[in-house]
């Protein structure tokens, strides 16, 4: 077996690499994705260390109440809001909310989508048809509209909003997973696994699913961006979290939109924060897609 030995030696020379290590390498060489990672890391750090970063408590009145609050200054980086609270601190604490909203609603959408999509894709037949038609109906309703309906149904509250936005994401995840399961189901290794007697459920969980989830991760990153926009949108429309003291970016926008000409900073800073956070997530998502999607691979 000298040939096999030669092969072995040759293989040991190259560093071990898996799908994820591969993907990581590709992301590393993608400047856009790096920018995205840096942006998101900044937000994440700001969220975690908000008490240290923010100069004041977000709900503490540090200046005077004013119809036209003072703008950015050395003392208050982003100025004050109408209640005389430090605006920079509020934006920083708002990061916590936005990230939480993004993560939880995507987790909800992803896990429901995973169950629904896997069932449809693996069972096939009428189960598949039924599930996918329901998903089509959900997709036919604009996402924000569906979320508004769900919030009305579930009630206003941070948790309810995250669930609502998560549910609007279910059909997207379900379709995506169903598609890749359908493709994997016919793969040779699945037939090979069946030929050694691997039972159905194990086949799905151990063999098919792990090979089908890569596109879900990409979609998850992108969905987090839309979820943040959706929640900000809901807040802007007055359907945000019921507690008015929560520094939610969308509500901060809504509260000051009418005074855009007098106190531009009240709109500018939370607006910019949303844009940058969403941009960062999209950059990462696109980078991941390029790294994982086999169609884009050389």
């Amino acid at each position, binding site marked *: *077996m000298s*040939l*096999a*030995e030669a*092969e*072995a030696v040759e*293989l040991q020379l190259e560093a*071990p690499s*898996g*799908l994820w290590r591969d993907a990581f390498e590709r992301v590393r060489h993608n400047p856009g994705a790096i920018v995205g990672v840096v942006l998101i890391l900044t937000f994440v750090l700001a969220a975690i260390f908000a008490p240290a970063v923010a100069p004041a408590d977000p709900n503490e009145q540090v200046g005077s109440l004013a119809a036209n609050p003072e703008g950015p200054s050395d003392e208050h980086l982003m100025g004050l809001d109408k209640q005389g609270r430090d605006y920079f601190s509020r934006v920083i604490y708002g990061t916590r909310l936005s990230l939480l909203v993004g993560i939880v609603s995507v987790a909800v959408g992803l896990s429901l989508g995973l169950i629904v999509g896997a069932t449809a894709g693996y069972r096939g*037949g009428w189960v598949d048809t039924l599930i996918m038609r329901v998903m089509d109906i959900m997709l036919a309703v604009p996402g924000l509209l569906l979320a508004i309906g769900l919030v009305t149904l579930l009630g206003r509250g941070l948790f309810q909003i995250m669930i609502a936005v998560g549910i609007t994401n279910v059909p997207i995840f379900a379709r995506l997973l169903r598609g890749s399961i359908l493709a994997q189901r*016919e*793969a*040779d*290794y699945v*037939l*090979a*696994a*069946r*030929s*050694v*007697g*691997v*039972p159905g459920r194990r086949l799905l969980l*151990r*063999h098919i699913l*792990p*090979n089908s989830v890569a596109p879900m991760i990409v979609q998850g990153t992108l969905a987090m961006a839309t979820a943040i926009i959706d929640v900000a949108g809901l807040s802007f429309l007055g359907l945000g979290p019921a507690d008015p003291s929560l520094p939610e970016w969308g509500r901060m926008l809504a509260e000051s939109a009418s005074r855009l000409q007098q106190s531009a900073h009240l709109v500018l800073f939370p607006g910019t924060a949303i844009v940058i956070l969403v941009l960062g997530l999209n950059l990462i998502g696109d980078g991941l897609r390029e790294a994982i999607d086999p169609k884009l691979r050389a």
Partner: protein
Amino acid sequence: MALLSVRDLEVKFLTRRATVHAVNGISFELERGDTLGIVGESGCGKSVSSLAMLGILPKPAGRVTGGEVLFDGVDLLKLPDDKLRTIRGRDIAMIFQDPMTSLNPVLTVGRQITEVLAKHLDMDKDQAEAEAASLLDRVGIPSAKNRLRDYPHQFSGGMRQRAMIAMAIACRPKVLIADEPTTALDVTIQAQILDLLKHLVAEEGMALILITHDLGVVAGICARTNVMYAGRFMETAPTAELFARPRHPYTLGLLKSVPRLDAAKKERLSPIEGSPRDQTKLIDACPFAPRCAYEVERSRAENPPLEPIDTEDHFVACWNPVPESDFPKTVSLSGVRAKRSSSGAAAKRAPAR
């Protein structure tokens, strides 16, 4: 009673547009230690018949519509799926054509082998790992123990096929079905893999069914060869007999389209003209008739049965068998075996359906 006995197996693919008659009543028997080759061009039903035996035809289109597959006296086709699952992999195992895609890319090679061991032999993790390492060692993978944690993409094609073989023989199956095990490999590796299969079969006393379009592969391993065309056996005989005295025009055509080391100088390579029959219609005629030089009137009117000819274990389904004067002319090579060619030229040329 035979270890495995297939009787009148019929498989159809039902699609909305047409019904494809993939396998139309094939029968054979297999004893311990037997090596049977099934040869034929792409789409003739070789792989489908083995998938049907194991109950893993692609669903919902593929159906077994008739016949029985008796394994140790039990009809596999009538077993419920959970019973059949305990036989698949433990008693009858299969090796697939393409080692590049037949291993799960996200599981380590070790996990894929231990999975079989844990399922069928109730081994615990340590036992299974030790056994998996010795299996990999057995199929010729160096430093087997360290390779268990490797992923399939870290293996070369030949090593992956070895790993597939390790998986298939993990439970010491009584029947090993190898479906084109060397087609995706290059020639040097082909020879190694065939050698390995040959040794394993001899040592374990397994019965081997080798499915291939490559006559050279069959010549090297199989004691007996069945030639398949359009879902039927056209000719079946001991391999040496089949190569020396092919009585079916299709067998002759296959032999003539492959270069042979022992061919006389005057022999020319000649492909089989035409392409395989449309299998959506089942007609009562010899399926090979339209491409056949020996065709007689009866060939177009009636399907010839598989009947003994010359010796008692040589069968042919033909109304006008090849006469002795047309047998391939060979010279003696004194001990050199027929060359393993890298392709069945005829099979490659004919478009797959």
